[in-house]
C-alpha cells in the first residue's frame, strides 16, 4: 500500500511562490489560505480511518493482551481479508455512484456454482472455478446493464438480483442434491492446486490476506493512477457531465458491477476451496457490511468521492471490532450496536469533509 494521495514534489511550494511573486499584486487572491501537504494528509479520508484503526488496535490490546499476539492478529485479519476484498470493489462501485445489494449472496452463489459444477459434472475443480467466474461476470454485467438502461436506482435492481440469487441458491442446490450443503470437493482433481491459491494458510495467516493486499493495491492504483479511475469518480460525481466530455459511462458502470461480482467470486472461491464445501446461506446479509467498510474508509453514499485504501482500513476496523469484543469481555451481542455507531460517526465525518471541499 504505497500509493500516496498525491505526487511527491507537486505539493512543494517553491515553483508556486516564484510564480506568485512574479504576479502583479492585484492578480493574487489574498483570500486564499495556504494549506501545506501535511495538513492535507491529516485531513484525508484514509488518515482518519487509519488513526481510528490504530486506536482500536491499541484499545483491544490493552483490554486483552492476546489480541496483539500472532494468533490474535491472524484471527482478526481472517474476516478482515474477505471483507476487505469486497470492500475494495464495493468502494469503487460506490465512488462510481452505485450500490450492489447482491454482492453478499453472490459469494454463496459463486461458491455453489463451483461446487455443483465440479460434483454434478464430475470434472476438475478448476473447471468449476472457471464456470463460476463466467457466471459471476454474466450476473455483474446484467446488473450494470439493467441499472444503466433503466436509470433506476441500483438499490432496487440489485435488490431483485439479491432475492433471485437467494432463491436460486436454495432451489437449484436442493433440487440437484437434496441437501443445502454441497461437500466432498476434496475428492476431485485439481483440488490440491486450487487449495494452494485459495485455501492455504501459513503460520496462522490465511492466503486470503495476500489476495486482500493485492486487490487493495490494484484498486488504489486503478482509482488514483489510471484514466479508468478518473472516469469512475466522474461517473459518480456527475454522470451527465462525464458523458458530455466523452467518458464511456455505460462501460464504466457495467465494469464496476462486474467488478463487485468478480470480487464476490474470489471470496466465494476462498470459502468453497478452504472448507471444501458450499452452503446456500453463505454471504447472505453481508452486503451491508461491505458498504459500511467502504463508508468508514471515506466513501460518500452519493458517489463521486472515496478511497480504496480507506475501504480496506474500514474492513480492518470491522474485523478487529468483531474479533476483539469477545476477547475484551464485551458481550458479542453488542457488536451490531458498535457497527451502527461506527457507521454513524463515519457518515458524519464524511459529510463534514464533503462540505469543507465544497465551501
Amino acid at each position, binding site marked *: 500500500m504505497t500509493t500516496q494521495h*498525491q*505526487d511527491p*514534489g*507537486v*505539493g512543494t511550494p517553491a515553483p*508556486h511562490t516564484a*510564480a*506568485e511573486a512574479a*504576479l502583479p499584486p492585484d*492578480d*493574487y*487572491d489574498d483570500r*486564499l489560505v*495556504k*494549506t501545506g501537504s501535511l495538513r*492535507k494528509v491529516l485531513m484525508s479520508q484514509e488518515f482518519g480511518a487509519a488513526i481510528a484503526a490504530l486506536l482500536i488496535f491499541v484499545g483491544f490490546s490493552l483490554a486483552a493482551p492476546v489480541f496483539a499476539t500472532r494468533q490474535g492478529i491472524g484471527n482478526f485479519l481472517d474476516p478482515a481479508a474477505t471483507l476487505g476484498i469486497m470492500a475494495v470493489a464495493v468502494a469503487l462501485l460506490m465512488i462510481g455512484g452505485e450500490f450492489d445489494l447482491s454482492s453478499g449472496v453472490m459469494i454463496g452463489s459463486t461458491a455453489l456454482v463451483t461446487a455443483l459444477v465440479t460434483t454434478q459434472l464430475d470434472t476438475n475443480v478448476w473447471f468449476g472455478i472457471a464456470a463460476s467466474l463466467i457466471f459471476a461476470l454474466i450476473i455483474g454485467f446484467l446488473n450494470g446493464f439493467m441499472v444503466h438502461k433503466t436509470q433506476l436506482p441500483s438499490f432496487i435492481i440489485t435488490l431483485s438480483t439479491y432475492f433471485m440469487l437467494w432463491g436460486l441458491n436454495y432451489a437449484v442446490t436442493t433440487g440437484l442434491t437434496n441437501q443445502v450443503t454441497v461437500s466432498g470437493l476434496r475428492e476431485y482433481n485439481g483440488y490440491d492446486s486450487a487449495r494452494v491459491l485459495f485455501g492455504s494458510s501459513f503460520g496462522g495467516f490465511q492466503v486470503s490476506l495476500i489476495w486482500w493486499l493485492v486487490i487493495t493495491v490494484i484498486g488504489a492504483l486503478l482509482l488514483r*493512477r*489510471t*484514466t*479508468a*479511475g*478518473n*472516469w469512475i*469518480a*466522474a461517473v*459518480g*460525481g*456527475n454522470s*451527465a*457531465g*462525464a*458523458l*458530455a*466530455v*466523452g*467518458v464511456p459511462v455505460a462501460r464504466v458502470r457495467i465494469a464496476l458491477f462486474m467488478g463487485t461480482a468478480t470480487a464476490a467470486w474470489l471470496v466465494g472461491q476462498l470459502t468453497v476451496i478452504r472448507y471444501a464445501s458450499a452452503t446456500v446461506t453463505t454471504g447472505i446479509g453481508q452486503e451491508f457490511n461491505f458498504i459500511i467498510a467502504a463508508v468508514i474508509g471515506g466513501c*460518500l453514499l452519493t458517489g*463521486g*468521492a472515496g478511497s480504496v485504501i480507506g475501504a480496506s482500513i474500514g474492513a480492518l476496523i470491522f474485523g478487529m471490532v468483531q474479533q476483539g469484543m469477545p476477547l475484551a469481555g464485551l458481550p458479542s451481542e453488542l457488536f451490531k450496536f458498535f457497527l451502527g455507531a461506527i457507521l454513524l460517526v463515519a457518515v458524519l465525518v464524511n459529510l463534514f469533509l*464533503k462540505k469543507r*471541499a*465544497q*465551501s
Partner: protein
Amino acid sequence: MTTPLLEVKNITKSFGRVKALQDVSCKVRAGEVTAVLGDNGAGKSTFIKTLSGVHPPDTGEYLVDGEPVRFTSPRDARHRGIATVYQDLALAPLMPIWRNFFLGSEPATYGWLKSHDAKKIVHDELRKMGIQIRDPEQPIGTMSGGERQSVAIARAVYFGARVLILDEPTSALGVRQAGVVLRYIAQARERGLGVIFITHNPNHAYPVSDHFVLLQRGRSVGDYSKKEITMPELTQQMSGGAELEALQHELQNILKDSEEKDSVEST
C-alpha cells in the same frame, strides 16, 4: 467568403409529438461569434445537444468545413474540433481541478495517467487566462462560478477546439464574473476560433457577437449581422416587442397606483 467552420441548415428535431426544433439554421466562421438568443423553452438546449452530437437532427443538414457530417456522440463532434461547454458544466465538484480539466481526454500511457505533466499543464493554461490556482489538487467545487466556466473554456481551447459552443456561460454569474467570461469569449474570437454563444441575455450577447440568431418556440425568428441590428432592437425582438411594451405599461400603472395610495395614506 470563407467556408463556415460549422453550419446547420433547416434542422428539425422532435421528441415524440413535441417538435423541439423546426427549420433552424445557423453558421459560424473562424474568428466570429454567433449568438443564439432565446427565452426559456425556445429550444436552446435541444439546439446545443444537436450541435454537440448528443442527438443527431431528424432532418436538415449539418456541415463542418462545408462537408456534411452526422455525429452520434459528443466524442465524434470533438474529433472534428467542436467542443461544447455546458451551463451546468461537465464537472464533478469533488474531483480535483486537474482531473476535471482532462476528464475524457486524460494524458496517459497505456491507461496510466501522467499526473505530473497534467497538473503542470493545468497550472500554466489557467495562468494564461489569469486564474491563479494554488493547487491543481483542490476540488473544483471550491472555485467560483466564473473561474469554473473559464476552466471549462480553457479546457476546450487546450484540446484544439475550433468551434466553441457555449451554453449560457454567463447566466448563473454575477456582473463582474460574467464580464470575466465575456472577455474570454472575445479572446477566443481573437485567436481565430468560431464561437456559438447561447444565451437569453442580449446585454451579454451584443458586445461580443458578430451575428445573432433568434429562437422562439423551436423556430428561428430572426437572423441578423451586427450591422443590421442595434442593442435595443435586439432586446425588443427577443422579448416579442409588443408584449414587453404592454408589460412596461402595466408596471407603470402598478407603480402609479401604489404612489397614489402612499400619498393618500400620508395626508
